[in-house]
């Protein structure tokens, strides 16, 4: 399986994602933002970081970069596009995913482990994961998901909510909401479920000496499902 990780100026989780993808069997290549085309891929990843310093608005300048047209074409043809953290923010800026990521409710950057509940397994990203609740890691300042009420209804009706913040028992209520995200949303799909954007970083949880290992389940499923 071939994957491509796009590097924007200011991306800083590109290497971590490269390490994770390779560890679980992807043939990964790094693609520079100024390239016009993406090499043949089964999966495109927009990594975390601070593309263009997150100046203006998180992900907005990256959302207009040269490579993005190819990403949009790839996504519209049904290709798998995964955006983690800043990558999620970029996907909302391009319009590939609905809504936007606002500043965290308590105005602080948050770096810690969280639990998320898988809300929809009818897709390639979570299909064969045996657990319902994953322990992942967040590190962001703007992870407070927001969209209009109409959009929310449409997202819910179409099963587009991918994962929600919860406690270890799966209670995804306000008490377990680290950043103020609407409905505790930690990640969403597009309607067709080939695009996933999520704030938590599975690539930081891929061996027992790191913060945990549930990230491994995510990548194992991904390579199997493709």
């Amino acid at each position: 399986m071939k994957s491509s990780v796009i590097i924007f100026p200011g991306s800083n989780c590109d290497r971590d994602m490269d390490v994770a993808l390779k560890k679980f069997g992807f043939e990964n290549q790094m693609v520079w933002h100024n390239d016009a085309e993406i090499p043949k891929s089964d999966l495109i990843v927009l990594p975390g970081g601070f593309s263009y310093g997150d100046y203006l608005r998180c992900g907005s300048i990256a959302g207009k970069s040269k490579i993005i047209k190819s990403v949009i074409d790839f996504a519209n043809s049904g290709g798998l596009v995964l955006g983690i953290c800043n990558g999620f923010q970029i996907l909302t800026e391009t319009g590939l995913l609905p809504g936007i990521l606002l500043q965290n409710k308590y105005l602080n950057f948050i770096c810690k482990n969280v639990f998320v509940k898988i809300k929809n397994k009818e897709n390639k990203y979570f299909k064969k994961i045996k657990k319902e609740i994953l322990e992942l890691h967040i590190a962001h300042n703007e992870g407070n998901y927001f969209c209009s009420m109409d959009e929310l209804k449409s997202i819910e009706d179409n099963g587009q909510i991918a994962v929600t913040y919860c406690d270890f028992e799966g209670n995804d209520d306000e008490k377990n909401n680290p950043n103020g995200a609407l409905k505790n949303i930690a990640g969403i799909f597009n309607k067709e479920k080939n695009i996933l954007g999520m704030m938590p970083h599975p690539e930081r949880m891929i061996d027992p000496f790191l913060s945990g290992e549930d990230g491994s389940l995510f990548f194992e499923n991904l390579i199997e499902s493709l």
Partner: protein
Amino acid sequence: MVEVNEKIAIEHGLKSDEYKKICDLLKRTPNITELGLFSAMWNEHCSYKSSRRHLKKLHTKGEQVIQGPGENAGVVDIEDDDAIVFKIESHNHPSFIEPYQGAATGVGGIMRDVFTMGARPIANLNSIHFGSPAHEKTRNLLRGVVKGIGGYGNCIGVPTIAGQTCFDESYNGNILVNAMTLGLVNKNKIFYSKAAGINKPVIYVGSKTGRDGIHGASMASAIFDDKIEEKKPTVQVGDPFTEKLLLEACLELMAGKSIISIQDMGAAGLTSSSIEMASKGDLGIEIDLTKVPCREENMTPYEIMLSESQERMLIVLEEGKENEAKKIFDKWNLDFAVIGKTTNSKNIELIYKNEKVAEIPIDFLAENAPMYDRKWIKAKLPKESTFSKDKFKSLKLSDCLKKILIDPNIADKEWIWNQYDHTVMGDTIQKPGGNAGVVRVHGTNKAVAAAVDSSAAYCHAHPLTGGKQVVCESWRNMISVGAKPIAITNCLNFGNPEKEKNMGEFVECVEGIAEASKYLNYPVVSGNVSFYNETKDKGIKPTPSIGGIGLLNDYKKMMTMELKNEGNYLLVVGKTGGHLDQSVFARNILSEFNGPPPEVNLFNEKQNGISILNLKNKNLIETCHDVSLGGILTSISKMSIKSGKGVKLFPLEGLVNKFEYFFGEDQGRYIIEIKPENLKNVENMLKKDSIHVDKLGLVEGDKITLENDLKISIDEIKEGYKKWLKEYMIS
């Protein structure tokens, strides 16, 4: 053009006799640009004029040392082809004036020092000191500094893996912000600042030059008064995004062979970087200031030379490599300009609009900078306090413990480090809040441990002992995670060196650091000095911060402080004498502030540490934590809180005062957890090395208990410990 005279020189922070020396050296009056160069190079921050003589006493050698003090950062060997580049630096003065930008640019500056040498930064640390929590400025300063550190480090994508935060009223008017960075480099591909060769192109890369930070280094060499708000424009503004680009571009250029030397523009900007490169290479340098990329219009030569705009580098390239280098900087959208060349004149020559605007022999600015042998007084060891038995009578262990765990210097600091990305780069295997931060050396079985320590109370009570103690505490932090201590970097924060008492504190702390680091083979390889941490005549307590690093050859054998299994034994390695003077217990419970700090016995320190590593290598230790502030009971509580496991303490033998035993801050001690089947073996091994060991208790249940004296649930102590800082920040 402004005419230069003594008055103007004094406004530049120079003394009358220094100005006279300048005129004598030049055999004429300097022009304003030249005076700017002298003031920048001769101030305390750049010239180390008060400290140089004493810094020579530091122990800086060892077979692990590849580069000691004098370069952008120190470099040590961590076996194979790997080396660690690391350094700590202060950004105290700017952080007090503008906490966010001051702290942010402190982090940016130290990272540049590290990647200038060809290393990719792999971990950041910091040591921050604030005034009393009751002081009106403390909360906002703390919030701003934490946001600044996070804002810069998080954006660059380097994990902040450890640090320390202290509160003491002596920092009410002068907070301390010390930032440390570790980078990883192939030891055959290290870059230095020494220029070599004549007519080599001098290249400017990075951000454009603006009017920010002019005279920053001079500001850092002065005491504060009522008008500090006016100094805001001297604080630089950070742009972590540009720094990230600069980092990647520099590392890309460094992969080739075109760089002769490279130096970041830190304090005193283009002035100190160009002069240092030329001085080290025994060369001259010619710069055409018209070619310097400027952010603002009509900047004068004086402003261009003294700007401390951030995220800039100066490079001496091999001839003919300009286009190759420019391509890389174009790719990263960074400015690139050939601004001058090396010469054989041994002068710095500045050209502006085809006119020579300054010409000074490099020697005058660097080697001939003043060096002072300031007067200082030796501190006496204070008399031990005698605590009457009555003082302890009404006290209960549980009350004391609860009070100590919410002491601002002990309470949990998670509110702070949750705002720092500590897991990016995917190699952080011990997070903040442990004995030390630990990151793997990417793609190998090795890991590097790092921690920062300071002990201002001890240094204030007796500087010589305090200096030794901080080094020992750093060494203990390395041992506690199972790392072999390698080397240290020091950030020496002191008051006004022109005062004999402050100067004495500096001299004796340095001597203490030197003695301990020599004995432990834990050399100082880099650092900086920050004097004049004084406001309206009130100086800070002497605060040397020691950043230590250690090596784990097999990261899988790293030790942590969480208690592991019910029924395991807890031992205290090292002797407990019950020293209460200068302890948290004495201050917080007995309101006693006098007396000597705990004695430092370097022989025991070394033996105890080496024994712990030996036990660890034989896989006999389950958990390890060093005993520091707050003594044994505080350490045990932290281990319990982290793991949710209780401890049954054994009754004390003989006529020991339980408060002295449990809260004394004697040095050189560790608490270790041992499986019952290994107990005899461990005790025998320690006995063979003549190391004192106490059986402290068992891992048991969910409470900490001691016969009839103590019974307290973990939840009860956890609440206060975890909540204090969070509640303070929102109150």
